[in-house]
Structure formats: structure tokens, C-alpha cells
């Protein structure tokens, strides 16, 4: 599929090898399995490769109207709680995932929002625990929050 041709992009981010960090990927898999995605929407488990996609969009003439990022964060909220996050609220810990180390004081999501006028939405879920060593699988509370994250994505997919 060609993500540069779509009106809305939904990108799941994170590393499935590090427990709850794989939340974004798991949400995308659940979404693809259980919901009918409209034809104007591109849904992808971007995993660790989200920067590649965002980089191409930043420089492309064609841009989506909206990008929905699904990711795990650690902001000290109740584990498994799912919420909207503004790009400017992204913790530094996560900003690096959206940077190609090109822009010293910003990142690709901010470029898209502030300079490319793309509507960037971040749907985040609070992790319970991210292991320091490789360990597969979400915690139970994160797994339980997948359906609510999908509902939030669907609302964001609604027409203008």
C-alpha cells in the first residue's frame, strides 16, 4: 500500500521484544483483525521503523491530513490507562523514537505538525513495566487496554 496516497495514517510504534513497549504494534494487529478500516486510511505496524515513514512524509509534496501515532509511554499514570497526548507533551524519552537525529531541537512529529500542518494525534498508553532485557509480551493491564485504544483510533478516523 502507498501511505503517501492516503488521507489518514495510523502507525503503531514500539519494540515487541521489550514487553509493554510493544503496545503500539499489538494495537495495530488487533485493529486489523477485528475492525473494517476505511479505504482512505493506511494502518501499519511500523514497529521500530516509524522514522523512515515520517521522514518520507516530511519531505514529500503529498501529505496525509492526519497521522495517528499509537505508542506506549511512561508518564506515571495508572498502568494501562489510555489517553491522548499532544506532540509537545511527548516525554524526551520518546521524542528520540521520532527523530532521525536530523533536527537538533525538534523531531519529525513536530515538523509534521508545526511546519507541514498535518494533524498529528498521539494515542498513548501507560506502561506497567519495560524490561531491561529482551522479553516478549504485554502485561495484562496493557493487553486489556487494547480495545479502548482501538475505539479511540476509530473516533479519530471519523470524517471532518
Amino acid at each position, binding site marked *: 500500500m502507498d501511505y503517501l496516497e492516503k488521507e489518514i495514517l495510523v502507525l503503531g510504534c514500539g519494540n515487541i521484544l521489550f514487553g509493554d513497549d510493544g503496545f503500539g504494534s499489538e494495537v495495530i494487529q488487533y485493529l486489523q483483525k477485528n475492525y473494517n478500516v476505511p479505504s482512505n486510511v493506511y494502518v501499519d505496524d511500523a514497529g521500530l521503523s516509524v522514522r523512515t515513514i515520517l521522514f518520507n512524509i516530511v519531505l514529500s509534496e503529498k501529505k496525509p491530513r492526519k497521522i495517528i501515532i499509537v505508542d506506549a509511554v511512561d508518564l506515571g499514570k495508572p498502568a494501562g490507562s489510555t489517553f491522548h497526548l499532544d506532540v509537545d507533551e511527548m516525554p524526551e524519552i520518546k521524542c528520540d523514537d521520532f527523530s532521525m537525529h536530523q533536527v537538533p*531541537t525538534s523531531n519529525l512529529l513536530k515538523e509534521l505538525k508545526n511546519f507541514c500542518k498535518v494533524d498529528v494525534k498521539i494515542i498513548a498508553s501507560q506502561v506497567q513495566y519495560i524490561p531491561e532485557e529482551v522479553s516478549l509480551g504485554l502485561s495484562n493491564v496493557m493487553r486489556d487496554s487494547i480495545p479502548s485504544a482501538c475505539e479511540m483510533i476509530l473516533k479519530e478516523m471519523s470524517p471532518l
Partner: protein
Amino acid sequence: MGKRIIIQPVSRIEGHAKVTIQLDDLGNVADTRVNVVELRGFEKFCIGRPVEELPRIVTSICGVCPWSHHLASAKANDAVFGVTIPPAGKKLRDLCNSIAYTEEHILHFFFLSGPDFVMGPDADYSVRNVIGIAQANPEIGKKVVRNRHLGTQMLDIISGKSIHPVTAVPGGFSKPLTQKERDKVLPMAEEVLEFAKFSIAFAKENIFPKYLDTVKVLGVFNSGFMGTVSEDGALNVYDGKLRLMKPDGSFTDFAYDSYTDFIAERVEEWSYLKFPYAKSWGEGFSMDVDNPKGIYRTNSLARINVADKMATPLAQKEFEEFRAKFGRPAQLTLLYHWARLIELLYNAEHAVELLNDPEITSRETRVPVTPRAARGVGCVEAPRGTLIHDYETDDKGLITNLNLIVGTTHNNAPINMSVNQAAKLLIKDGKYDQGILNRVEMAIRAYDPCLSCATHNLDGRLPVRIDIVDSEGILINTIQN
């Protein structure tokens, strides 16, 4: 009182690194170290898993070159199962590898290293970046996006998934290429080839001549080199034999699975990342820039140095020009960029060549496999260096032992040495500025290091921060962008 300069993380490399420059009491460089954080627990995680799962799992190690890990793992599986894959399966893997190379090399030259050269190493950080280069050269920016996107589209068509590939399987390639798909992909590959031709011509006319003085001095030291060649000595990034070249240009060829007879991995207490070295040279290991021992380099310049020739005509022409100018082995570190563009051209030509091969659409792309107790070594040339996957299994095909040496790890010692040389060259009497520190980073970026394979940092960071602390550990100055 000595000072310590810390650059953390180094910007515009894939992954993260911290550079520490220790100054002596006179303000000259006493020592340097490049640190990265290694991914922990992957080997342990794999023990007991079915070996055939590995080609899919390893794509989650790295978001930058998943295809290299995917293919090295599939080749290690072939060896474990003791099978020879059908020619069409091998060609489809080779094709995907070359397409992935074109994407990576275009990205690196134009947007990771490009800002140093196009905008200049002393240009302000606010413009010496991807946005700056796109604004200064909008037409090139469009072409880069177009050609990288073509790469993604081609991989999607050929394999179904470009980001987390699954089609290289034990015994071959799971998805034959149809004639219709081939006809769709071929013009795309031809367009990328045209851009590859443009890229090297553009660089030779507009970039390299301006920076030859810098190329001659920055990060320079003499080392050996390692890369993969075909039986006839031509550069090959998918399959062949390993060639280990000494600094004097003499070399030894060996099969992948005997790499432990030639390479050892050293541990330094100050770094999580291992330091591979050429143990077969029998001289031990030393990162003394003036008298290195056991040090070899990998990645583009290494591959060009160890190769006798290129397998495609346009790349061969560029190869001959390069060798006539810089000799064999070429030791100047910034020549990695030039070598990378020759490889871009080779891979673009090779992709077109493979797509024109009638066998590429054969339906015979895989053979069945049966679990057994065995050891299997898979190796490909990842864009950033030789990538080795070494697996052992029990009679049920479950992993009992595993070792990975990723491309950047081979260059761990050389990167440290180039930084040391560059810092000593540029920092005198305690005087340094952002331009000087960026030149130190340029020595690292020449290697196009991808530390994502070895890194899973959980700590927050600023893109570049330089802390200057005295010998008592007290912070006396901070510079940040």
C-alpha cells in the same frame, strides 16, 4: 586540571553514542572513548525457540536494516537445516537485499552525511540538517523521497512487507514473483538506477572536490579490511566468501562458518559493545592509532577495498576510477562516502539485472526442511558492515546457542580510533568550538554506524550535549544545540 568533553548522543547516526574526550592539563587530547549501550538478553531470549522463528524475530532488533537481519537469519537457517535453496529463491533474496541497499545508501549520503558537505561542517545547526538540505536543494529532496519510496514499493510488491519482512524462510523464499509483478517492479528499479547514476555524478562534481583536503586528514589511520566477495573476487553483498585484508593489501579468504578461526571478540571494561579483531594475524589487539594491532574495518570502503572488481559495468567503471585515485587498500576514512555511492550504483544495476533474469519468476523458490541438531552460520553484507548470525540447534530444531556480530560492531574499534585521531588533530590548547566538535562527529558518521541493533536506550536525551567537566568531575560548562 584536565577537562573532559562529552558529546551525547552523536547526532545523525542511527542509534545513539556518547563521545568522551579527555583533555590533559595543557588542554590537549589525552584520550577518547565512544560508548554505546548494548541490547541485552537477546541471546538468552532465543534459547529454546524454534530456529525457523528467528528470521521473523530478528527484524525487531533493528528498525533500520531489518532486511539484512532477516536474510542473514534465513541463511543461517538454511545451513542449520542443511539445504541448498533453489536459484529463484536465492535471486529473490538477493534482489530484496539490493533494493534495501539503495534505500539506505540514498538516505545516508543525502541526509545523514549530506548536511556536513552540502551545508558545510561550520554551518549553523539550525540549517545543517535534513530540513536545511531539503530547503537548499528542493529538487534533490524530492528525488530522494521519490527514490526511497520506490524502494519501499518494490519491496512491498516482491515480499508483501517492506518493514517487517517475512518472506525469506528456511529453504528459500515463500512468495514467488509473478510476471505481472516483475513487469511492475522493473521500471521502478530502472528509475532508481537513473538516480544512482545522478547521485555519484553529482557528488563527484559538487561535493568531493570541495572536501578533498578534509578527506585527506580527518579520522585517518591505517587498518585492515573485511568484506564479502564472490568466487571470482567481485564485490557481493548477499553471498560469497569472507575476505580479510591486512593493511599491506595481502588477504585471506575463508568460508562464513569458519569466522571464529579468524576473528575474536574482545571485551573492554568501559564499553558494553564488543571489539572484534583479526586474531588470525597473531599480533593481538591494540587501538593505538599510530601502531594498531588486529584492527580491521567493514562497511562500504572495506568492501570496495577487498573486491577485485565489480560485477556490473557502470559500477566497475567507477570502481576503476576510485582505485586509480586512492590505491588498494584506500585508507582515508571519509572515502566511505565515495565507496557508498559506488555501491549504490552497483546495487541499482544489480536489481535491474536480476529483474531481467527470466529465472526470477520461477515458481520453484523454496525446498522443504527437516529439523536436526546442527550449527549454521548465515552472513550477508549489511549496508553498515558484515553481519554474522551463528546458530546451534538440538535435534528438534530448537536453539541451543546463538551469536550475532552486527555490522557496526566490527567497526567499534575503528570508530574509536578515528574519533581519537580527529580529536587530537583538531583540539589544541583547550580550544574547540561547535564546528570542531562536528568534525569529530563526521569521523563517526563516515562509518554510517547503526547502533539500533545493539541499543535499547530508555533514558531521555537531547540531540547533542557537550559537558565539560574537570578532573574532579565537576561540571564547568555545557554546550547544547
